[in-house]
């Protein structure tokens, strides 16, 4: 495979694959700005007069707006609680549970990978019986399994990477358990923890099945988006594309905001 021809062939192949990776996304984003007539052409158009009507339709649609609001509430709350409970737990698993550590990780991970169906089905009935079916609170509770287990799973290695000797040095300077965690382990592990947080946020934001089954009317955004596609024959592709863009935006914004926040915090500390 060496030789000029081999190498250029490889380059072409690679370029093609990069294309395949990006183009679908770019195309959709492009399509969000197209009027329907520009989309329905047999030959795909690259040049067209862009319009924002699709976005307007989306954002004016009350169920989309509600969906956005519900998603924001449910995901933020469950991630917040997940972090408050999960991060300290992960620290303890990493530092103090020498013997049960692997078992803990197994337990946590097996929950993370539990098929959502297995959770959704029984909880439909449980919630119906309890009268909390179709509430945001009910959804948050169920999402806690995902958020806590994912955060613990990802945070334990983050705390593993904090050198033991630094914590020992802090102990020797008189710090108690909680102080070592709060003042040293947490700040040092913060960048990785941040990654875990973002991952969990995105994970729950995109979650469909549980939301679909447990909160049909107080729907979160993915559910609303999914329901758009089952609209009749005249499939509003422009609107759907715009919906896709809207679907993707919040996690990106969240990531961007948190990164900015983290940079600001790190910057402030070094002064």
């Amino acid at each position, binding site marked *: *495979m*060496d030789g000029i021809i081999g*190498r250029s062939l*490889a380059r072409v192949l*690679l370029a093609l*694959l*990069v294309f*395949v*990776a990006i183009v*679908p*996304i770019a*195309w*959709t984003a492009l399509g969000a700005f197209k009027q329907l007539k520009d989309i*329905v052409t047999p030959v*795909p158009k690259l040049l067209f007069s862009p319009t924002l009507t699709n976005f307007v339709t989306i954002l004016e649609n009350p169920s989309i707006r509600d969906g956005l609001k519900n998603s924001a509430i449910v995901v933020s709350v469950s991630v917040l609680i997940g972090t408050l*409970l999960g991060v*300290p*737990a992960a620290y303890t*698993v990493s530092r*103090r*549970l020498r013997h049960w550590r*692997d078992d803990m990780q197994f337990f946590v*991970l*097996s*929950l993370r*990978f*539990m*098929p*959502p*169906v*297995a959770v*959704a*089905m*029984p*909880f*439909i*009935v*449980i919630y*119906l019986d309890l009268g909390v079916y179709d509430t945001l609170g009910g959804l948050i509770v169920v999402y*806690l*399994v995902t958020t806590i*287990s994912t955060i*613990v799973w990802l945070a334990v290695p983050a705390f593993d990477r904090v050198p033991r000797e630094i914590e020992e040095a802090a102990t020797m300077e008189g710090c*108690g*358990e*909680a102080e070592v965690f709060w003042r040293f382990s947490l700040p040092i592990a913060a960048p990785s923890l941040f990654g875990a947080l973002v991952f969990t946020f995105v994970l729950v*934001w*995109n979650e*469909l099945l549980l939301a*679909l*089954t447990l909160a049909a009317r107080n729907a979160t955004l*993915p559910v609303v*988006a*999914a329901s758009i596609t*089952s609209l009749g024959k005249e499939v509003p*592709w422009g609107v759907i*594309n715009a919906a896709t863009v809207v*679907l*993707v935006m919040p*996690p990106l914004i969240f990531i961007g905001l948190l990164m900015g926040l983290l940079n600001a915090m790190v910057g402030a500390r070094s002064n």
Partner: protein
Amino acid sequence: MSRQRFVFATLAPAIAILAAIALASTAGAVWFSLMNRTLRSPAYKFVGIYNFERLFRDPRFYNALEISALWEMITVVGALAVATALAVLTVETVKSALWRNVISFAFLAPVLLPRVAAAFIWRFLYSPSLGLVNYLIGLTGAGPVEFLADPHLALYAVAAVDIWQWGLFFAVILMKLLETLPREPLEAAMLDHASRWEIHAYITLPMLRGPIVSLALVKAVESLRSFDLIFVMTGGGPGVSTETLDLYAYQVGVNLGGRISYASAMAILLLIVTNVIFAIVWRRVKTWTV
């Protein structure tokens, strides 16, 4: 705060909640599967293993099992094959760190998309009349291909999307791993006049056997949760050609008359299968990473 109290205070809330919910759903699923509850009527009675018996006589269940198994194989093997080939290709073809980062970013984009969004994007692309893919196929003179409407093609078409997201992502991971391999064995091989491909086949890839197996196993577990993708792309159709187990369970439990108990029985089976696979995964991954 004393060590004991600290450990308890930090662990107890998290574990309590996890255990409670996990217990509730497992116990609930078992309980309901032994009844004949439906969402329509509040009346129900104990029916023992009736649901399970019906399940084992249900051809649609077996179809769902078959589709799930097929899905697992295609996506896992596909993703890993694509990932390995792509990682090797990139590492061999692109030497500059800058370009490698650019390519990594490109390959990471698909997996960052929510499943639903990816589903939408590709539904659009696959569309026989409006999609880019069929346009490109049309350029070669072949007729439009009904990717999602053809029962023979649908599963593969959806699997392609899954591989698009995960295969490219894993390629980036493998690329990073390839970069961190110690150089000396490779240099020794080059001094032995090994060709590029021999080096990869006999040295670098075997060295990465551990991570590759781990990734395959992670993918295997992840593929079991592919509801989002399939639901939005095909809803299980055409017919039942893309109806995996979790889709069937959903249809039964929520759509077709809300036969919750039947769905619970299926959920239990799925739970057992997942746990078994996961236990195997866990043990394997442990030996590779120790």
